[in-house]
């Protein structure tokens, strides 16, 4: 199928974008990368009245690091990175795009996002706006307490990722609002990260994927953050598993392919699968399989983080 007719505008400034988004017709869409939007238009699941192409608006393609510096400790002093609405997925293929372990986590995750030609167009902010439960970026945003920054008819506001996702394809965005950027707190040098995705074939969306950020001090987990991709109707944070991990000894990880059942990472995987995840059965995976897969992938991702990944 081909997209049905729609009106199309290319504003050149942010005020012009907001003016266009104030259009009273029922379906007004923002076009950034378009890698989900144009597909949905082909399928006629989305039939917009107006498409507002923001690609010519200057200043939205910035990736800005602020605050932080050597010797800083604690979340505030580590600084943050602000990723504009037109920063493409492909920008994160290099771990150096974002300082510290956050850049490593982004580069591990981005390998799983479609393919390079799609990553040349699609944007991180677009993924947050689309809110697909299998989106890698959405789960990372929830796990790391990102802030979604918006401009709208009533001024600027920022929404924490935990309050942003209201369901499948549902967000807290109000009519007429544009997401201008997403802000992530940077991770400290003592935090280690992991990202593992499980899917049927290379061309599939994630069946289950897990993002982990782990701070281990003197062999004991000081802080754990776990984001679950496609483990519910929206991106989830595995808070019960995180609590169970805090204070747990990492011990020896050995070289075997499988950790013993009693290892805290394996236990955390089981807790994430049973108490945090709320998977939806699909044609290729029933709930028993999905909960098993979630437990395994969480355990492996924690182990990957603890062992350290170099990029």
């Amino acid at each position, binding site marked *: 199928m081909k997209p049905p007719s729609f009106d199309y505008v290319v504003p050149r400034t942010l005020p012009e974008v907001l003016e266009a988004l104030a259009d009273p017709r029922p379906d007004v869409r923002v076009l950034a990368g378009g890698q989900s939007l*144009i597909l949905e238009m082909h399928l006629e699941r989305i039939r917009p009245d107006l498409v507002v192409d923001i*690609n010519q608006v200057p200043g939205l393609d910035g990736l800005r690091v602020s605050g932080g510096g050597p010797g800083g400790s604690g979340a505030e002093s580590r600084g943050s990175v602000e990723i504009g609405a037109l920063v493409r997925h492909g920008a994160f293929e290099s771990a150096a795009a974002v300082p510290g372990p956050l850049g490593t986590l982004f580069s591990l995750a981005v390998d799983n996002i479609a393919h390079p030609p799609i990553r040349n167009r699609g944007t991180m902010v677009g993924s947050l706006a689309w809110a697909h439960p299998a989106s890698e970026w959405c789960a990372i945003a929830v796990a790391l307490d990102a802030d979604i920054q918006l401009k709208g008819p009533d001024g600027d506001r920022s929404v924490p990722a935990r309050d942003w996702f209201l369901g499948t394809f549902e967000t807290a965005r109000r009519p007429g609002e544009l997401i201008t950027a997403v802000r992530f707190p940077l991770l400290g040098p003592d935090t280690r990260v992991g990202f593992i995705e499980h899917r049927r074939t290379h061309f599939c969306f994630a069946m289950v994927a897990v993002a982990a950020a782990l701070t281990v001090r003197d062999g004991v987990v000081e802080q754990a953050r776990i984001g679950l991709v496609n483990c519910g109707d929206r991106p989830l944070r595995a808070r019960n598993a995180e609590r169970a991990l805090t204070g747990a000894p990492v011990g020896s990880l050995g070289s075997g392919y499988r950790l013993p059942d009693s290892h805290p990472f394996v236990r955390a995987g089981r807790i994430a699968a049973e108490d945090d995840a709320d998977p939806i059965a699909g044609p290729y995976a029933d709930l028993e399989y999905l909960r098993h897969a979630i437990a395994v992938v969480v355990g492996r991702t924690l182990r990957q983080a603890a062992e350290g990944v170099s990029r």
Partner: protein
Amino acid sequence: MKITLTVNGDAYALDIEPRRILADVLREDCELTGTHLGCEHGVCGACTVLVDNAPVRSCLMLAVQCDGKSVRTAEGLAGPDGEPHPVQRAFSAERALQCGFCTPGFLMVAAAALEADPAMGEDPERVHSVVASNICRCTGYEPIRRAIVRASNEMTAPPAR
């Protein structure tokens, strides 16, 4: 809507509906049918073209988005004298196609990767990641990989005396 597309160096002044995707405009309005449309879902990669030198799916881009941009298609790979691009010669030498439907897309992702870094063929992982973007149901991908490595060797070889 009036736009100007520069395709393979030629300017096309077009008046098109915003709803039309780049692939259809290339094929129907510019009459460049080298770009093939497979799935129209962004999955198969047959329609891949270069927009401002970056490979993109021309089924997931509106033609009006390319106003003023430079587009390169399979027709633009050969040199001005008609000499095939090294990647085209390598596809022929390695028999990297059977039915040929996916070939334009593979040629474009391979040409973009090789022109950005002619030595990329030395790294099997990078060759893999280029090949993994697109679907070929005939070759099993191995001849395509070999073609990319062959083109890379040719492009990095010192010029003959």
